[in-house]
């Protein structure tokens, strides 16, 4: 074994795939994805059992949610731009990309808040209301966690903690953000689009 003589020729705590922190993040995302899968199971299960029309008040309005979905997709793009920036050693792409992502995330939550206030049913109205607000609320909570993640990592970015070689926290924050985005596409398809088609 070539490394037997001096094992310290090997890199110490390298970034991304080689780091246990990267594996931990992938597995956290997996288990969180399963949580959404079980919640969506609850939605489809109760929907398939419903004796009244589903959703009870007709398919949900799409006027606000379509632009909001686009905002979230764009924010995934800006996050990708930030991460690939630091991979190329660009501090300003990292910082500005994460800042724009943060702002877009805040806008997404604000628009979701407006949409909530316009609904004519509540969590307590019926099982559909419970499912709608719980699933979208769980997703909103994940967006909020992603924003907190962003704030801490961004603070470190402005402090100049990251380099082209070492930026695991950025990779993990980006992976989490893309996950939140993908989950939204699934939630959006299930809760908003499907009732219009089916």
């Amino acid at each position: 074994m070539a490394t037997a003589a001096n094992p310290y020729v090997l890199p110490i705590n390298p970034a991304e795939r080689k780091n246990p922190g990267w594996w931990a993040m992938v597995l956290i995302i997996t288990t969180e994805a399963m949580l959404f899968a079980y919640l969506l199971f609850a939605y489809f299960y109760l929907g398939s059992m419903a004796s009244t029309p589903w959703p009870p008040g007709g398919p949900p309005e799409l006027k606000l949610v379509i632009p909001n979905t686009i905002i979230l997709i764009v924010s995934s793009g800006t996050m990708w731009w930030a991460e690939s920036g630091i991979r190329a050693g660009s501090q300003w792409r990292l910082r500005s990309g994460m800042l724009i992502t943060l702002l877009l995330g805040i806008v997404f939550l604000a628009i979701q808040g407006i949409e909530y206030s316009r609904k004519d049913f509540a969590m307590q109205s019926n099982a559909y209301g419970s499912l709608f607000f719980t699933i979208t609320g769980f997703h909103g909570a994940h967006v909020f966690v992603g924003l907190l993640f962003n704030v801490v990592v961004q603070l470190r970015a402005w402090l100049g903690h990251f380099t082209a070689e070492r930026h695991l926290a950025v990779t993990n924050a980006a992976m989490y953000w893309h996950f939140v985005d993908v989950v939204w596409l699934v939630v959006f398809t299930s809760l908003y689009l499907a009732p219009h088609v089916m």
Partner: protein
Amino acid sequence: MATTTIPAPLGERLTRIWETAPGLYGVLATVDHKIIGRRYLVTSMVFLILGGLEAAMIRTQLAAPDMHLVSPEMYNQIFTMHGMTMIFWYAAPILSGFSNYLWPLMLGARDMACPRANALSYWTFLMSGVFLYSSVLLGQMPDRGWFAYAPLTEAQFSPGLNMDFYAIGLTFLSVSTTVGAINFIATLFKTRAPGMSLNRLPIFVWGTLTTSFAIVFATPALTAACVLLFLDRRVGTHFYDAALGGSPLLWQHLFWSFGHPWVYIVVLPAMGIISDLMPTFCRRPLVGYTFVALATVSTGILGFGVWVHHMFATGLPPTAASFFSAASMVITIPSAVAVASWLATIWLGRPIFKTPLLFAAGFIILFVIGGVSGVATAAITFDWQLTDTYFIVAHLHYVLIGINVFAVMAGFYYWLPKITGRMLSESLGQLNFWLMFLGFGVGFFPMHTLGLLGMPRRVYTYHAGQGWEWQNLWITIGAYVFALGVVVFIVNVIWSVVRGELAGPNPWDGPTLEWATPSPPPPYNFAVIPTIASRHPLWETRLDETEMRSQLDSGPVLDAGRDTFGTTPLDAEPDEILRMPMDTMWPFFLSLSILVICYGLLTNLVWLGILGAVALFVTIAGWFWPQPSMTPAGGEV
């Protein structure tokens, strides 16, 4: 026999790097997998004793007809706490204890891949247990059974905090379980010693690995079920409320989607314990290693497709029920493979019936009986007859005590000398085995017939003249004999720690890597990182299967910091050095913040919940702020 001899200065230097700080700080801040593993073992045994005391109360109440030692309400609380304690706070955590202690030793690493996450999983396990048992102080223990069927758990049928303790406590515990599982998976794929390829892993490692994947995929179902229950109870949603479009069956689907994989989570590593001690006490390699490893993984996967067999009595469409009945029968195939392998190993080997092998033999017998009653209840019509009777109680105790507790006992007798450095008494061990084995048979076998006679489970008493009296008395006597066995075990452990013969590195002449370290192992585990060439690194000369030899006493030292090799996921070739974190209080504080949030949710005190959430955020940010000791010169992680 290959034992590592290390020059004293190197040992001292590595000890300085790896040892936990003395005093209270060290107690709260340690990240040493061996200390965490020992804590897991001790804490789970405390929960076993608590659950055992609850069982003793149940059996005393049922010893004779028309007894009124406890009220029906109290009885509901006791059997619920018994089930929750044993299934959630004992059966899985005890196996995590063995895995935490043994994995790095078996894999040839100096610690788990994420040592701080390891500490976190212990603290959350302990504090969630403290949270659950604080319900005793309020006299409001969970009281709707460990699987807590809706709608009995809904606020209108269950006012009081009882089922809030259930929903919040289990969600808290799932943090511990999930963090632990993620750590095991990362450890397996990142920190095996060079040469420890997948086909050389001990079966116990395969068991815990399978279990860990099952946890990652199944635990969210329990979390979802409990969160929805909490929302129903506290916020007024209608998930389980049939009147407004919900369904009580949703609870059952979510709970058992988690619950059945959980059954395999608490048995697969235990089966691994048996597979790994078989070679030592039969003096030959395990027969059919590859088949047993594949059987372990396939049981874990099939375990996700059988949950509906808990729900045959709920009026499902026959096609659905038949599918799940068939799936439940298919799962007997990998179990039979494992049993065949153990029997063949005994048959072809030269068995030495020391206490660990006695417990292993008892385990096989109980596994087969519990398996047969399992196949019986997988048949739909048979299940309709027996569901909610003592037959089910018999089946689940054969499975959980037979496959979990007996394997755990075997594991203790086998590995405790490694952990404490001292042997247990063999004569007390034999007494311990026979008390537990006979007590178990006397206590649990009659439950089968009692179930066939129609005695329902969970009744707090029964009238005389139904033909149930003598079996119930018999069962109670058996339960007490079994408990006496547990007492003998505790006496044996105390005796061994004080007086036991010194074990030395490899008292049983075992084949696997953990026996290459001193007993107890030093804080750094291995002075040099070993290079592995076979499945039985300590038996290579004897077996002479190939020319290749493992290197255990020479190789890379890695003494520039808390360093161990990071290796490639499949072939385990070193491609980096992992610099491990130093002791830290963050895991303890993080766990404490979650505890505060839980009490905030329980008491409806919004400020307490917010306080906990803010503390949680600060702790996580502090945890991941770069630690200077972990960062090599020239950059940040």
